[in-house]
């Protein structure tokens, strides 16, 4: 199967005078349409890894290839366009724009790209709101919603541009266990429905065990990489 994300010998060092190496020569790739988890303790480098995979951060050395395109030579604006169309982000903190309603937040990536989203996109936004169970509160300001609702809005936003990849950093880290189950189920459903590749970063083993592949990061290196045998 096609590799949607491929990391070759990726290292990341922070700081100039006092150098802290966070990632050591990571070789890692993910199949298109797969459902994966990256686990690791806090400080293991998993968030840095996700930021690099999502082109929000650049590796100190090594290459990142997204969907067959090398990203090391790309300019800031080219990376922005790549993120806009290929990658959807779900963060631990929802990172919605408090000035906009839930629906407007969901449409924001399309507004950035097309200025005015097409009728098709708007319909898709309503569908997604329904999918995440927010059709009743979609016109509320995002700052006036509960944590679970905000996180579900963020998931809908991540999906609006029909991205090939969703990168989720502790998407349920702020939620209670019931809501966690709901959000997880939703991501599974989207993976089945839209064939979107999911890479979920979590420190929660229970969540990780529900995915098809678990990559464990420890001290900046891959410690474990197991794939559920498909039956």
């Amino acid at each position, binding site marked *: 199967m096609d590799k949607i994300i491929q990391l070759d010998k990726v290292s990341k060092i922070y700081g100039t005078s006092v150098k802290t190496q966070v990632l050591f020569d990571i070789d890692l790739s993910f199949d298109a349409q797969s459902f994966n988890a990256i686990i690791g303790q806090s400080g293991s480098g998993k*968030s840095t890894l996700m*930021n690099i995979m*999502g082109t*929000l*951060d650049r590796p100190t050395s090594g290459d990142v290839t997204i969907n067959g395109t090398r990203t090391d030579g790309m300019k*800031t*604006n080219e990376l*922005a*366009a*790549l*993120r*806009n*169309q290929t990658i959807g*982000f779900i*963060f*631990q*903190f929802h*990172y*919605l*724009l*408090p*000035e*906009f309603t839930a629906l407007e937040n969901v449409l*924001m*990536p399309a*507004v*950035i*790209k097309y*200025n*005015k989203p097409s009728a098709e996109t708007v319909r898709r936004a309503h569908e997604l709101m329904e999918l995440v169970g927010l059709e009743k509160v979609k016109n509320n300001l995002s700052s006036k919603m509960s944590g679970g609702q905000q996180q579900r809005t963020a998931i809908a*936003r991540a999906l609006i541009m029909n991205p090939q990849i969703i990168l989720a950093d502790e998407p349920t880290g702020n939620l209670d266990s019931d809501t966690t189950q709901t959000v997880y189920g939703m991501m599974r459903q989207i993976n089945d429905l839209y064939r979107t590749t999911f890479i979920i970063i979590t420190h929660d083993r229970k969540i990780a065990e529900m995915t098809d592949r678990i990559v464990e990061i420890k001290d900046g290196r891959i410690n474990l990489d197991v794939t559920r045998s498909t039956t």
Partner: protein
Amino acid sequence: MIASFKIAVRFLKSSRGQTVMIAIGIAIGIAVQIFIGSLIQGLQKSLIDSTIGNAAHITIQQEDNDQLMADYESVIDAVRAADERITYISPVLQQAALIIDGDQTESILIRGFDYKRANPIYAFDSRFVEGRLPAGANEAAIGKELQAELSLSVGDPVDITITGGTKLTYTVSGVFDLKVQSLNKSWFLTTLESAQDQLDKSGLISTIEMQVDDDSVFQVDELAVQLAELPDFSEKKLIQWKEQNEQLLSGLNGQSISSLMIQVFVIVSVVLAIASILAISVLQKSKQIGILKAMGIRNRQASLIFLFQGLILGILGGFLGVALGLGLAYAFTVFARNPDGTPVVALLIEPGFFALSFLIAVVASSLASLIPARRSSRLDPIEVIRNG
């Protein structure tokens, strides 16, 4: 671009209090600038008006003061053809004379005007307190100060003595008030023909006086130089009002510069205030900018958000400022009045100046938003994502 505009509008709307405060800040700055500008312009215009509104702007005479001009009609035609800015031209024959009344002697200046041509310059018609302009050969009008000194009234005869001891008798046809004491005391108005005839200066005049249009009063020096180059002007001398009013001019100049300085500093402080508030708002919104960048907003779009905020604030503040400035100006003309009910200073309400102030508000606010726009463009989304 439209996305940036939408986001800018939403940012401004969501912090309504702050937006209103900034707009009021800009408005007050612009209002003060408009008020001071209009006040000073109005002051200067009324000063200029009262100084030269009813006086000759440029005077042509022979190089030799004692000589008179015979070819004056052709000179007038040449001047009229030379420049469109010259609106009114009037020939004058003048000569000093004395009025001896018992032991009292008044020195006067006989001025023979062609009133058809002189009226637009001096507005004699509206200056009469009594009687009318002289018409016949032996009629003369005198100023109200001279009338008081000699206790004359309309219809009374008055004897004058000209150089050489010749005595002439005139009848007072009217009393004028030119609002300048020295003129009211010395000017003795007759018709041009009467003066030429009585003074035995047939076909001669002493000076040609002219006025230029309102927009060109400050260009008289350049105009005078230009006229002096006309053919047959080699023996003529041109005097313009600016040479005769140097003190007034330097006063006006100083006033203009200080008014301009005040206006500039008001605008500078407005710009700095907007820039600092917008710079703070970039910090306030840095999380939002980071999120937008993670979602793929380009750097240019991100900086446009703040440029649009500056632009919108400038337009809002500009409109408010112009309205407030007009209100201030109006209040000033209504409430600050002389005892006789006329405004202390007639403010000059010039649409062009208001439009310029509005434009300054918009441009200044946009300029002020450049720094925050740059910061927004440079903001790295990872900073926001990593630091939460």
